[in-house]
């Protein structure tokens, strides 16, 4: 049965809203990761979150019998989208925060190369995801969906969650963008100005954690790190100011979401992968500009 464009837009409205919101906001977080020369965190942190989610499933039976989850049984919890979403979001956020804290701490100790650390972390987190997945007594289908990142399966509750989280991240990023840029560009000058540098660093890491945790669960790790990494790379050669860099990064992310949706509907391709492929296409103008420079 063929669906018209309008029918598809209606049928997949939650998935599209989630994708476009991710396309708008994730590149802004990725832009700050790029500025701080930690772009690769955008690839590794979603893997930590994915491992956290799967570990959450492994621990779910124990959690329900020992700590309790709103008084629900295991089957009730698995069938309640609100409860299971909030539970998994917490695991995703904790795992992401733990991974981020470890990378930052190891970076400050200055041992080994940053690229090596991030690559090792990515490998370990990916392996942990699959190992925990095999150990998980429940939620196998959910785990597989997570690993494949089936965005079209996003329902109303997931959409509400990711839109709320990402709009909160957007509001805080826009509100504190000047100070976040300052502590990223010249942290010593920020300290001399008696700005609360540590608080601002924690804020940025928390915004990154929220984005990665919600994004991993709802749009999947692949689409998430595609939107964190690729749009800022596409935007940078054309940006002559901080404002332009942030706007162009977000614009490239939205363009990728639009192109990816079109590609997915026209060619019947997975939405998440189509969006990432489209984000890759937005790199072409940047590559041409660099080649001509």
């Amino acid at each position, binding site marked *: 049965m063929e669906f018209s464009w309008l029918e598809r837009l209606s049928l997949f409205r939650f998935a599209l809203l989630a994708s476009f919101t991710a396309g708008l906001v994730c590149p802004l977080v990725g832009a700050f990761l790029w500025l701080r020369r930690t772009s690769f965190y955008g690839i590794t942190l979603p893997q930590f979150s994915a491992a956290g989610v799967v570990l959450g499933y492994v621990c779910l039976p124990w959690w329900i019998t020992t700590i309790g989850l709103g008084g629900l049984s295991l089957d009730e919890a698995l069938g309640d989208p609100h409860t299971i979403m909030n539970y998994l979001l917490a695991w995703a956020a904790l795992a992401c925060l733990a991974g981020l804290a470890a990378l930052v701490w190891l970076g400050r100790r200055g041992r080994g190369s940053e690229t090596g650390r991030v690559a090792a972390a990515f490998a370990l987190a990916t392996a942990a995801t699959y190992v925990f997945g095999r150990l998980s007594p429940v939620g196998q289908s959910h785990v597989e969906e997570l690993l494949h990142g089936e965005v079209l399966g996003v329902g109303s509750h997931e959409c509400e969650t990711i839109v709320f989280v990402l709009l909160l991240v957007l509001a805080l990023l826009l509100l504190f963008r000047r100070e976040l840029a300052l502590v990223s560009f010249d942290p*010593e*000058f920020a300290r*001399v100005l008696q*700005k609360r540098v540590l608080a601002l660093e924690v804020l940025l890491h928390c915004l990154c954690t929220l984005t990665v945790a919600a994004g991993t669960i709802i749009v999947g790790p692949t689409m998430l790190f595609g939107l964190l990494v690729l749009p800022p790379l596409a935007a*940078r050669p054309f940006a002559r*100011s*901080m404002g*332009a860099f942030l706007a162009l990064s977000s614009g490239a992310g939205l363009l990728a979401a639009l192109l990816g949706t079109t590609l997915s509907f026209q060619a019947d391709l997975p939405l998440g992968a189509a969006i990432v492929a489209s984000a890759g296409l937005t790199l072409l103008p940047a590559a041409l500009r660099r080649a001509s420079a």
Partner: protein
Amino acid sequence: MTTATPCEPLIRLRSAAFGYGARRVVSGIDLEIAPGRFLGIVGPNGSGKTTLFRGLLGLVPPLEGSCARTGRAVIGYVPQRESLDASFPLTVREVVEMGTYQRLGRLRRPAAEDLALVDEWIERVGLAPQRTRPFAELSGGQRQRALLARALVTRPDVLLLDEPTSGVDRGAQEQILALLSELHRGGLAILLVSHQLSLVRRFVEEVLVVADGRVQQGTPVELLTPERLELLFGAGAGGD
């Protein structure tokens, strides 16, 4: 601006020692930076002048003694431009505007009068035509002037500069130094670290010589004699 009285020092060190971890780099420092003074810090590489400078900025806490700012004395800081990442997509105006971030208003935005101050200082350091250019595209001297404008936008009581003329051509050096002299005549206290002794002799009123973890204070005539310089820096250290 500070609430200190005209004679009250802006920064006061009492038997201060600075270092990293348990290692003292400089110690036994008694120093007062009063309003309107112009000081230079000199010393051979590894002598501790950068550590002392960072202590005065508040970036390194004292291991002994005390380092206090009077009232709410505002420090303007001009770092070495090489310490900054030139790949950041910032315009000259965005860099200078950072000096207003200690006074952000509603919705964390600079007030209109602060934005006017930004434009005024960009004009005064001679960068008005470059205000919308990326910071990374400026020459060394232009970047240094942008960082100076950023520090002046903080409305400082004392200006601390780290090697402000390092790697800058002669013409740009003269521009920067002329501006510093003008600011000093206007009453601003200035302290700069420099290895360019000719600059120090020409402009500063007092010198802090850092050597072997100790600090000596005096005028350039007293402390920058050929004999002392040879002792500190080796043969041929009389000029730049």
